[in-house]
C-alpha cells in the first residue's frame, strides 16, 4: 500500500470539474512530480489532500488512515506540510518568528498542559524550556536553508528566492514525513533553480517524502522518481521520467496534436 494515495478523488466547483476521479499515489521516500498544463487541477488536488479544501467525492489515505475530511491543521499535525504557489509567509513577522510558528504544535512539553493559553497565563518554568526548544529547532532549520543571517528581517522584505526558501524552512520546522511543494522554482533564475534542486535532494536524504508541482521540466525530469500528469482534471499518465517523456498523450497535452 502506498504511503499516501487518493481513491478516485473528485472536486467540482459549481459545474466545473477541477479534479476528475484521480487516483494519485506517493511512495515512501520518493520524490513524486505532479505536472500538467495550467489549469489542469494540480493545486486543487494539493488543496484537497492537505485539507484546505474538501473533495466532492473520493478519499485520501495517509499511512493507511483516512484523512479525507480532517481539518487542515490536524493533517499538518499528522506529518504533512506544504508550501504555497503564491507565497504565503507571515509577512509582518520576522524570518525567525515565521519558522517558530512552524514549531508551534511541536513545542508541547510533556509537563505542560496541552493548552498553550493556560501555560501563557501561568508562566510556568517549563514554558522557558519549551521556548528554548523552539528557538533551537527553529535556528536549526534556518541554518539548513542558509537563512540564519537574515533572522531579524521582516519576511516581506526578503528577496523572492529567499521567501521561497523561508517557506520551505517553515514547512520543515513542522517535521513532516511528507512535504508538498507547490511550484518551488517559479520565478527563479537557472542558478537558483540549481540550488533548489540540491536542496530538494538534501531534504529527501533526511527521509522526507516529497511531492512537487513544477513547470520547470529540467528540474522535474532530473530529480523525480515518479511523475503523474494531469490534464483537464484527469490523470493522463503515470510513470518514471523516461516513460513520461515518451508518452504520446503527454506530448499531445503539452504541444498539441499534429494535424
Amino acid at each position: 500500500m502506498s504511503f499516501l494515495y487518493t481513491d478516485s478523488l473528485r472536486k467540482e466547483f459549481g459545474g466545473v470539474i477541477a479534479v476528475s476521479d484521480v487516483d494519485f499515489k506517493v511512495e515512501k521516500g520518493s520524490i513524486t512530480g505532479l505536472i500538467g498544463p495550467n489549469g489542469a487541477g494540480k493545486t486543487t488536488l494539493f488543496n484537497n489532500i492537505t485539507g484546505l479544501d474538501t473533495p466532492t467525492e473520493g478519499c485520501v489515505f495517509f499511512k493507511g488512515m483516512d484523512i479525507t475530511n480532517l481539518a487542515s491543521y490536524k493533517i499538518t499535525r499528522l506529518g504533512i506540510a506544504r508550501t504555497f504557489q503564491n507565497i504565503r509567509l507571515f509577512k509582518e513577522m520576522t524570518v525567525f518568528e515565521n519558522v517558530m510558528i512552524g514549531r508551534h504544535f511541536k513545542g508541547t512539553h510533556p509537563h505542560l498542559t496541552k493548552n498553550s493559553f493556560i501555560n501563557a497565563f501561568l508562566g510556568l518554568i517549563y514554558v522557558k524550556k519549551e521556548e528554548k526548544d523552539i528557538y533551537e529547532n527553529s535556528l536549526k532549520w534556518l541554518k539548513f536553508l542558509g537563512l540564519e543571517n537574515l533572522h531579524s528581517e521582516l519576511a516581506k522584505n526578503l528577496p523572492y528566492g529567499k521567501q521561497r526558501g523561508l517557506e520551505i524552512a517553515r514547512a520543515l520546522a513542522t517535521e513532516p514525513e511528507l512535504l508538498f511543494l507547490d511550484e518551488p522554482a517559479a520565478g527563479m533564475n537557472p542558478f537558483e533553480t540549481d540550488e533548489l534542486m540540491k536542496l530538494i535532494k538534501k531534504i529527501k536524504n533526511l527521509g522526507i517524502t516529497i511531492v512537487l508541482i513544477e513547470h520547470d521540466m529540467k528540474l522535474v525530469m532530473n530529480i523525480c522518481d515518479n511523475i503523474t500528469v494531469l490534464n483537464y482534471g484527469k490523470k493522463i499518465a503515470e510513470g518514471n521520467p523516461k516513460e513520461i517523456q515518451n508518452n504520446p498523450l503527454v506530448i499531445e497535452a503539452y504541444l498539441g496534436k499534429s494535424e
Partner: protein
Amino acid sequence: MINFILLLVIYIGIYSILSLSLNLIAGYTGLLSLCHAAFFGIGAYTTAILMTGAKLDFWSAMLISGVISSLFGILIGLPTLRLKGDYLAIATLGFGEIVRNLMINWDSLTRGPMGINNIPSPNILGFKLIPSQKWQYVILVWLFVIIIFFILNRIMHSRFGRALSAINDDEIAALAMGINTTKYKIISFSIGAFFAGIAGSLFAVFNQSVSPNTFDFMLSIMILCMVVLGGMGNYLAVIVGTVIIVTAGELPRLLGFSNVIPPQTNQILFGLILVLMMIYRPQGILGRKRLDFGKIIQNSIKKEV
C-alpha cells in the same frame, strides 16, 4: 480641581482596560470587533445586579462579571468568527445593539432605561472605599490596569500569542502550520471579553449606578479609536491612545472653557485627530511592537563557533 483630575485618571484607567483588551482582539488577532461596549456593559450590569440584588461582595461579583462577559464572548464568537473583516464587524455591531436593547427592555432584571442605582462601594479586606475619596479608586483601578497589562503582555510573548499574530497575518498559512485557528480566535475573543467585563465591574462600583445608554455603539467606536490612535498591536501605545482621547474629550472642562465651547466640539476634535492620523501615521503613534529575537540568536550562533 484636584478631584476632577483624579476623576479623569480613574476614567483613563477604566478605558485603558477596555482598550488593552480590545487590542488583544483587534490589534493582535486582527478581528475587527465592534461590540466591546457590550462586553463592558454586561460586566457592569452583572456586578450591579449581583451587588444590589444578591448582596454579593465585590470580588465575587467582579469575577462572575468577567466570566459571564467571556461566556458571551464565546457565544457570539462561535457563529461569527468564521466571518472575516467587514462581515465580522457588522455581526459584532449587531450583537452590541442586541445587548443594549436587552438592557433597555428587560425591565424585571435591568430596570430598563432607569438603570440600577445605589450600587454599594466595594469592601476590600475590611476596608470600605468611600466614593468621595477618589484616590482610593485611583489605586484600585490602576492596580487592575497594571495587572492586566502584565497578563496580556505575558500572553503576547508566549507561543499562544505568536499563534495569534500568525492568524492575523495569514490565516490559511496558520492553518497549514497546524494551528487550530477557530479555537484560537475564540479564546482571544473570550479573554478580551473577560477583561472588558472586569472593566465594567470597576465602572459599576465607581459610578455607583449603571444605565443602558452608557454602553452604546459610540463607546465601542471610541475604544477602537484609542487602539488605532495609539498603535494596533502595542499595549503601551494603546494606553497612550486612551490618555489622549479621554483627555481631549475633557479638555474644555479641564481648561475651564466648558461654558464657552460646547461639548459637541469633542467629536469634531476626535474626527480631526483620526483623519490626520490615518493620513500621516496610519500605524498609530507608536506603531506595532515587534519582538526581537536577534540577541538570542546571535548568542546561540556565537556559542557554536
